[in-house]
């Protein structure tokens, strides 16, 4: 560990630390433009010059290019270095347009800061400034090349870090231009990071363009709740609306970056002034009512039902986007009042998958995204990282950049921003492929592993009987055998019920072979891990609940942040079931169909207004702080009333869990818990830790689930010439957040049904043909996309908001070939 002296202060830093980082550890921030911890150093901007007084280097040198070594004495304030930096900033400012007053970066601009701190004030160069033509870069990013200082951060991020090939440097010297070949949308779903990473205002956030100034913003550390990863964000609010989102650094989770769905998918939380989407006022039978009235009306109606038909006639339904607070409160309410539920899952298979994924994961095998980046073999099974959890695809790319082989086993045409070996296999065959791969990688020495290995072989035995793995699997097995830190990324969307548990066992077996293998699950939503932990076995899924409603066993329902119209596959049946209910209450922040039809609707607050706790898919507890109090937005042309009071029109609503406590008559028994003081009941992991510490993984502390070999409810039979309709997620356009966020709308692509090239020939279809698929609920019209990477005998259809996929009538659907017609 080298020790060095920077500005007369001594510090010991880890081997390989750059001097610029060593200084930062001392709290000395050396000016920089091109250097970024995530991107590494290139020494292009010459801004981080410091004077090396003693040691192996002498004189003015770039601190980002030199690693800290023993005996170095560095001065950042030496006259020579200061003078050097002043000259550099003067040259960088030679072409900068000084349009700070109209630039959205103004107030958070690195170039502004360094110019001021560098002491450059007067322009001495009398010549003209260079100008460029800007390009159209899509709905999220505004391009203003004149401001560029040629630090290359954008192209290094876009091409090297994120792995996309449509934005980069063109021309040379003074004419250097960063842009695309021609105007058009940026292809990368990580393009929003250009806003954060650009040291000046070349790339600015188009959704927030001219809406705000940095110093007017209310800022708070937040969380992204759109997928299960739990990326850290900074939410920025202004005039009672969330205006923009920035990435918040978290070494273990998202690093410095964020995907576009998370960054731009916040407008659901705003009662958009133009559209007035977000429901802000409680309603009784469709009529606007006071909050207290709505809550007491709901309480009375539910009490009546419980008194008349027994408490079991009231059920509580949650979803995959509930916070841990809401989930715990639902559990508490159901336990105390004897209500049915809480029902977290719509699909019984998904419930099994999530439960096994959650319970099979323990502290021994769980890995974070940072650990994925350092893995030396990545196996993606039944997951489409880019669509289900985009930031995990970015982590996979970082591993691939360090030469880790990436293997994907999935029916979908999984594409990753890195080279990967893809096996397009049916969901039922994923386990066979994975098992065969692990068996081959373990080789002969697996015999010495004892019962675990034997059980594993016995379980696989029947599956592998008629299984002829392709040649390329052997090659992958050799790579896996050679690796020391492999990671298995297992999805839950299209896999069989047993696959998550099977993947966990594979990881354990690999660990027995003296590897440090890890498991990374992708779950369906931000609240899935919590739902998996808190879900009780005797509680039905929503699919069962619909039957209960139909036979009159359940007469009252509470939907807490849940919209069956979005999640349940049979819309007609759902409508008739809901109409049979005596009463149903919706607590939500989306203007969903459920909210519209509810007997009583109460507008629950969003994550931005009251904060929330979420457990991400690796069991890490994280808190989002509230950023503003919400309420009726200020419409253009109105100033917020200048009254010194905490009350805001439309801003007095409670989070779903508090509203639920009030409806269940449990305000007294429920202490007023702030997110950071929250202790969910009956989770051993939390008890052991006392209060969960932000960013820790308490839920994994005492876990450890024993494998039940041979648990398989999955029906593997499939008649010949039938196709399984696989409903999948897309990064834009399938989630509820995407449905209600106008800001994401321009990025949503029209729905496409992916089929394999062989099936296309068999069905007589070509790419971009429009087909009609006859389903139980009617005909689904969709455009076909033919891919070599799709598995045979599947039709892959996104749960697109613009597609009536609810015609499928079931979670698992098979379609025979004659029901697919070209139109």
């Amino acid at each position, binding site marked *: 560990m080298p020790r060095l002296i920077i500005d007369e202060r001594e510090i010991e830093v880890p081997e390989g630390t750059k001097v610029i980082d060593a200084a930062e550890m001392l709290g000395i921030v050396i000016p920089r433009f091109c250097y970024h911890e995530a991107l590494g150093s290139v020494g292009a901007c010459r801004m981080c010059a410091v004077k090396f007084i003693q040691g192996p280097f002498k004189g003015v040198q770039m601190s980002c290019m030199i690693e800290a070594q023993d005996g170095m004495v560095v001065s950042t304030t030496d006259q020579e270095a200061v003078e050097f930096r002043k000259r550099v900033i003067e040259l960088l400012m030679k072409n900068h347009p000084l349009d700070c007053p109209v630039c959205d970066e103004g107030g958070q601009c690195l170039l502004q800061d360094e110019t001021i701190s560098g002491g450059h004030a007067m322009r001495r160069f009398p010549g003209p400034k260079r100008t460029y033509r800007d390009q159209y870069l899509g709905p999220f990013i505004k391009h203003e090349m004149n401001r560029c200082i040629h630090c290359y951060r954008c192209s290094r991020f876009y091409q090297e870090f994120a792995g996309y*090939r*449509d*934005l*980069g*440097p*063109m*021309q*040379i010297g003074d004419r250097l231009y960063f842009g695309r*070949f*021609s105007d058009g949308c940026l292809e990368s779903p990580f393009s929003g990071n250009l806003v954060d990473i650009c040291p000046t205002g070349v790339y600015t956030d188009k959704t927030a363009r001219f809406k705000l100034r940095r110093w007017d913003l209310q800022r708070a550390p937040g969380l992204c709740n759109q997928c299960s990863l739990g990326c850290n964000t900074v939410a920025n609010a202004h005039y009672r609306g969330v205006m923009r989102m920035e990435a918040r650094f978290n070494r273990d989770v998202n690093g410095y970056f964020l995907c576009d769905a998370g960054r731009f998918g916040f407008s659901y939380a705003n009662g958009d002034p133009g559209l007035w989407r977000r429901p802000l006022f409680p309603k009784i039978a469709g009529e606007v009512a006071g909050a207290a009235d709505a809550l007491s009306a709901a309480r009375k109606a539910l009490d009546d039902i419980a008194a008349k038909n027994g408490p079991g006639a009231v059920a509580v339904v949650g979803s995959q986007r509930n916070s841990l607070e809401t989930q715990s409160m639902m559990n508490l309410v159901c336990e105390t009042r004897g209500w049915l539920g809480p029902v977290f899952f719509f699909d019984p298979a998904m419930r099994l998958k999530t439960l096994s994924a959650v319970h099979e994961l323990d502290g021994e095998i769980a890995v974070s995204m940072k650990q994925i980046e350092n893995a030396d073999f990545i196996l993606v099974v039944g997951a489409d990282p880019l669509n289900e959890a985009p930031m995990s695809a970015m982590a996979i790319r970082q591993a691939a950049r360090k030469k880790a082989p990436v293997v994907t086993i999935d029916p979908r045409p999984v594409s990753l921003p890195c080279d990967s070996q893809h096996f397009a296999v049916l969901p039922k065959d994923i386990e066979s492929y994975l098992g065969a791969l692990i068996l081959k990688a373990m080789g002969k020495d697996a015999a010495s592993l004892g019962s675990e290995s034997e059980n594993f072989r016995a379980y696989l035995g029947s599956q592998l009987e008629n299984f002829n793995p392709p040649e390329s699997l052997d090659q992958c097995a050799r790579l896996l055998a050679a690796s020391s830190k492999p990671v298995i990324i297992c999805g839950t969307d299209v896999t069989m019920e047993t696959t998550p548990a099977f993947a966990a066992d594979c990881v354990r077996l690999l660990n027995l072979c003296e590897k440090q293998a890890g498991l990374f699950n992708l779950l369906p939503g931000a609240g899935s891990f919590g739902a998996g932990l808190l879900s009780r076995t005797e509680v039905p899924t929503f699919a069962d609940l619909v039957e209960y409603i139909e036979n009159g066993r359940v007469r009252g329902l509470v939907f807490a942040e849940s919209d069956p119209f979005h999640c349940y596959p049979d819309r007609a049946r759902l409508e008739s079931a809901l109409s049979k209910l005596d009463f149903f209450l919706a607590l939500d922040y989306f203007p969903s169909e459920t909210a519209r039809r509810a007997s009583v609707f109460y507008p629950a607050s969003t994550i931005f207004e009251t904060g929330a706790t979420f457990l991400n898919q690796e069991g890490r507890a994280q808190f989002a702080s509230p950023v503003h109090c919400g309420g009726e937005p200020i419409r253009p042309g109105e100033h917020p009333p200048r009254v010194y009071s905490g009350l805001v029109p439309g801003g007095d609503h409670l989070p779903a869990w508090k509203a639920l406590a009030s409806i269940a008559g449990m305000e007294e028994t429920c202490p007023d818990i702030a997110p950071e003081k929250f202790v969910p009941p009956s989770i051993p992991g939390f008890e052991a830790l006392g209060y969960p510490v932000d960013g820790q993984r308490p839920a994994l502390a005492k876990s450890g689930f024993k494998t039940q070999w041979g648990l398989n409810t999955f029906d593997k039979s499939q008649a010949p010439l039938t196709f399984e309709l696989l409903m999948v997620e897309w990064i834009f356009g399938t989630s509820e957040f995407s449905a209600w966020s106008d800001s994401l709308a321009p990025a949503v692509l029209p729905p496409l049904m992916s089929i394999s090239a062989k099936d296309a020939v068999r069905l007589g279809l070509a790419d971009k043909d429009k087909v009609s698929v006859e389903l139980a609920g009617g005909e689904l019209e969709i455009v076909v996309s033919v891919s070599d990477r799709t598995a045979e005998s599947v039709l892959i259809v996104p749960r697109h908001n613009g597609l009536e996929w609810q015609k499928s009538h079931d979670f698992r659907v098979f379609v025979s070939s004659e029901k697919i017609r070209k139109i």
Partner: protein
Amino acid sequence: MLPDQLRSKLREMIAGAESPREKAIDVMYAIQELQGWMNDEAMVEAAQLLAMSPLELEELATFYDYIYRSPVGKFVIKVCDSTVCWLEGQLRLTDYISSRLGIGLGQTSADGLFTLLPVCCIGYCDRAPAMVINKRVYGNLTPEKIDRILAQLAQKADFSGSE
């Protein structure tokens, strides 16, 4: 659209390489030889052949002075503007050419014969000031020599034009 003959020739060229993109410059040269400059359509097609994104090819094309992304004249005069030529009076000579042809740097003469471009050092410092016209280097330039060269070229163009 590239002619089929050229396309198959390029395919062959690319197939011979270890990785397609190492032939990027040669492919662009071959196309340029045929049509004089690289238009957007040709860029996209070449990128397809090379399994690169159009942007990646554009990065290369615009980096080099010898690949033209806009139409050029029959003779492209590339005057070296690096240090040694500059010391030997390159600026004066450039001005001379420019006034003689009536075009500025980066422009093409009205008759479509000459295009004047500044380029980086061409390695003829020993014969500075130097310039390159269509793959031929001319050193130790003086206004008289330039007059002679330009007259020769113009004559050559007339001759080939009358053919």
